[in-house]
């Protein structure tokens, strides 16, 4: 038990750091929101396996989970609609007013990846928590 907890306590920050790297790297190479979000979710699952359900729920409550799921979708759709508002098509990033078109599309893709990452992370933890939770008597 103590070995599992010590290793988990050591590993979880690095797993989450790697997840953030994968999300940010998505625009220019292998990586992206899906994989990064899944790695973030896996770190949360490791925490629950090592420390128990209550500890996990303390970090991410039911309410926060639902909020994060919708927040990711809102970021995704918001960037898409922002592109329409400045006069392009849905998700046409290079028209966004962030300097050169190349820079704008990089920033747009980064925003999309962050949105996807948040939603995938929240959905993963939500699936895990709700399946593993004790049924209410």
């Amino acid at each position: 038990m103590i070995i599992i907890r010590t290793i988990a306590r050591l590993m979880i920050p690095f797993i989450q750091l790697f997840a953030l790297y994968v999300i940010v790297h998505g625009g220019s190479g292998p990586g992206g929101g899906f994989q990064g979000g899944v790695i973030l979710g896996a770190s949360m699952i490791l925490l629950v396996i090592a420390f128990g359900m209550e500890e996990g729920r303390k970090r991410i409550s039911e309410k926060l989970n639902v909020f994060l799921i919708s927040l990711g979708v809102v970021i995704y759709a918001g960037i898409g609609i922002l592109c329409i508002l400045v006069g392009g098509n849905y998700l046409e990033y290079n028209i966004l007013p962030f300097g050169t078109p190349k820079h704008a599309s990089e920033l747009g893709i980064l925003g999309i990846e962050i949105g996807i990452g948040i939603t995938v992370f929240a959905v993963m933890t939500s699936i895990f928590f709700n399946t593993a939770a004790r049924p209410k008597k």
Partner: protein
Amino acid sequence: MIEFVLGKYNYWIYIILMMIGFYAMIAKKNLIKKLIGMNIFQTAVFLFYISLADVEGGTAPIVWEGWSGAYVNPLPHVLILTAIVVCVSTTAVALAIVIRIYEEYGTIEEDKLLGMRE
């Protein structure tokens, strides 16, 4: 003959990995070990697809003006991208069920669980 066998070493690696995972899924009694076997099995399938798509000297499939050369087929990568997420999701659900089984029965050994049925 030897060249034929060694030249396709990616197939051998994926077959060996797949059989390791399959063995763990069938022969191990511990549910967590079964799950680890399932993950190894799935990783073997990912490696199979990714290595099939590889083109010697190929680059990422980003094409610009005045560019010529080989690029790696992106379709298997996209398929596996989805498969990785599915793999992690199935593992998450399975782990959650294992936690529930442990809370309910106090064991995750398959033979003990089956013995409790009577």
